[in-house]
């Protein structure tokens, strides 16, 4: 149903029985032009007035055979124009159709009062309008002047109206309104049927969606369960809370940003004299990264065996041999080439502390520098130039040594600490990190590690860290 005549979609055009001169009163230029085209196509001649006043002028110029008038128009509306046309004896027998939205029952009274013969509701089907014109032209109107006694009292919407109207006009108008109602009713039935079909498909889609959602929820629950289980496994591989090492105090914090971490750390005695320590940070996050982190962690244990990367049995039953950090990282690089593991690589800082002497040997694989906090004197970051592990095949990693004095501390950490980002994506940076540790150097190692983690978490408010955070602190007591 549209006011726009569309030849492509419209049913076969209505072929009128009468071809007459029509006067249109319509303030919308576009609607008037569309109506004019339909009427001219149907064989009528058309004159157009932009409001009631102009329409009266055109009436005076030449008497039309039929009038079609809009209601809402400036200067003189459709009712006023209709009243003028219907009270003038020379025009009152011209059939007049009002185009109305019929949104208010009182419209009927207004139409009756004005003397309209017919209502066509907007939006209208052009064919329907042409049909109505024909039926009006079939029965010519007789001139009648309502006698004083023909006044009727009508009650609509609780309001009483007194209306003077001729019988034929009342009949015509009633019939037109009824026909309108029937047409609208047919449209409603069709719309209802389409709605019913749409409702059925909606219901079907809804059921499918519900089933699909349930499936997603089940999968999600299973994956969450698996993730939690995997996270527990990962956590269980971390060092024991209380590490009993003579001559050394150890503290650590490890906070994954998701369930599973790409970070991993450990600290353990390698033999009676050596303490091994490392932090590994695998690129990326999620399951693949954490699997690699755990795998690397599993290679780096203090179990003495020929295949161990860290400590091997001594020759001829001699004491076990601690493998040098440089060799350990070089071996890791040979074992974990990124091309064999979907481009994942990792950085590592691995250190071995000789407990009796305080000599620390360490090697970095592209990892952030080691922080040395001497008992007295300035803090220092020790950077070891090297590629991350898995990046370049057949690289020899080098080793640094650091002679600790009693009371000296070293901190290993993942890049989640210095690269922690605040809301504006500003990084915490090495300077803030070392300044904090400097201010806490008289506090126990445990306090330092805890406060450093808290400051990272505070820096990353409100969203929290976007990277795993690992911190490992060791104090050599001498």
């Amino acid at each position, binding site marked *: 149903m549209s006011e726009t005549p569309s030849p492509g979609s419209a049913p076969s055009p209505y072929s009128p029985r009468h071809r007459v001169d029509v006067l249109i009163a319509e303030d919308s230029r576009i609607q008037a032009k569309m109506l004019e085209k339909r009427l001219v196509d149907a064989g009528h001649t058309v004159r157009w007035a932009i409001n009631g006043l102009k329409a009266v002028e055109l009436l005076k110029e030449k008497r039309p055979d039929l009038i079609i008038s809009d209601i809402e128009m400036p200067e003189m509306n459709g009712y006023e124009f209709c009243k003028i046309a219907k009270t003038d004896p020379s025009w009152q027998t011209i059939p007049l159709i009002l185009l109305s939205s019929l949104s208010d029952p009182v419209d009927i009274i207004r139409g009756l009062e004005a003397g309209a013969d017919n209502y066509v509701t907007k939006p209208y089907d052009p064919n329907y309008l042409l049909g109505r014109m024909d039926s009006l032209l079939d029965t010519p109107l007789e001139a009648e002047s309502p006698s004083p006694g023909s006044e009727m009292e009508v009650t609509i919407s609780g309001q009483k109206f007194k209306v003077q109207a001729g019988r034929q006009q009342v009949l015509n108008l009633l019939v037109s309104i009824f026909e309108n109602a029937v047409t609208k009713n047919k449209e409603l039935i069709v719309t209802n049927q389409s709605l019913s079909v749409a409702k059925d498909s909606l219901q079907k889609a809804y059921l499918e969606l519900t089933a699909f959602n349930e499936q997603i929820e089940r999968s999600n629950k299973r994956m969450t369960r698996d993730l939690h289980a995997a996270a527990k496994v990962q956590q269980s591989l971390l060092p024991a809370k209380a590490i009993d090492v003579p001559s050394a105090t150890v503290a650590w914090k490890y906070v994954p940003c998701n369930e599973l971490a790409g970070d991993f750390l450990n600290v353990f005695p390698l033999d009676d004299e050596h303490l091994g320590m490392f932090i590994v940070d695998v690129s990326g996050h999620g399951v693949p990264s954490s699997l690699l982190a755990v795998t690397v962690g599993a290679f780096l244990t203090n179990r003495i065996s020929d295949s161990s990367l860290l400590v091997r049995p001594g020759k001829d039953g001699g004491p076990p041999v601690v493998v040098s950090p440089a060799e350990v990282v070089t071996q890791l690089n040979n074992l974990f080439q990124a091309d064999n593991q979907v*481009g994942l690589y990792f950085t590592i800082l691995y250190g071995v502390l000789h407990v009796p002497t305080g000599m620390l040997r360490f090697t970095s694989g592209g990892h952030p520098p080691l922080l040395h906090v001497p008992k007295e004197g300035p803090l220092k970051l020790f950077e070891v130039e090297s590629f991350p592990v898995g990046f370049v095949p057949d690289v020899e990693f080098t080793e640094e040594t650091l002679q600790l004095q009693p009371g000296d501390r070293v901190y290993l950490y993942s890049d989640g600490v210095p690269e922690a980002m605040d809301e504006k994506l500003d990084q915490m940076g090495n300077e803030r990190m070392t300044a904090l540790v400097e201010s806490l150097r008289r506090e126990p190692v445990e306090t330092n590690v805890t406060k450093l983690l808290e400051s990272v978490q505070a820096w990353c408010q409100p969203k929290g860290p976007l990277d795993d955070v690992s911190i490992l602190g060791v104090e050599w007591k001498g």
Partner: protein
Amino acid sequence: MSDAFRRIDVSKQEKAEIAKFKDKKILDETALDELRVELLRLINDRQGLNLLLDFSNVEFMSSAVLGLLGQIHRKMGTLKGKLKMCSIHPQIYEVFKLTNLNKLFSIHKDQAESLGKF
């Protein structure tokens, strides 16, 4: 449309093909995987290819991107091609420095400087 690249703009110059990253941020795994697929498709096992990666649009990237660059670097090595990078944001360059990869990769200030070195 299947031939088009979503994450890189590719242009052919006399001395090299230039792949310019479109993204401002390369942070999530999806973006990284798509980049991997597109770069490998661009390289397409062409022997002796000269490739320049232009980072001028990139303001943030996760360190996982370095893994991808390493992969491309090794791939180009096996194909006897040359790989260069240019226009790397200072904050991102810090990550290259930290991991020492600024010494592994051939990195230049801008396209013109890079193209001059092929």
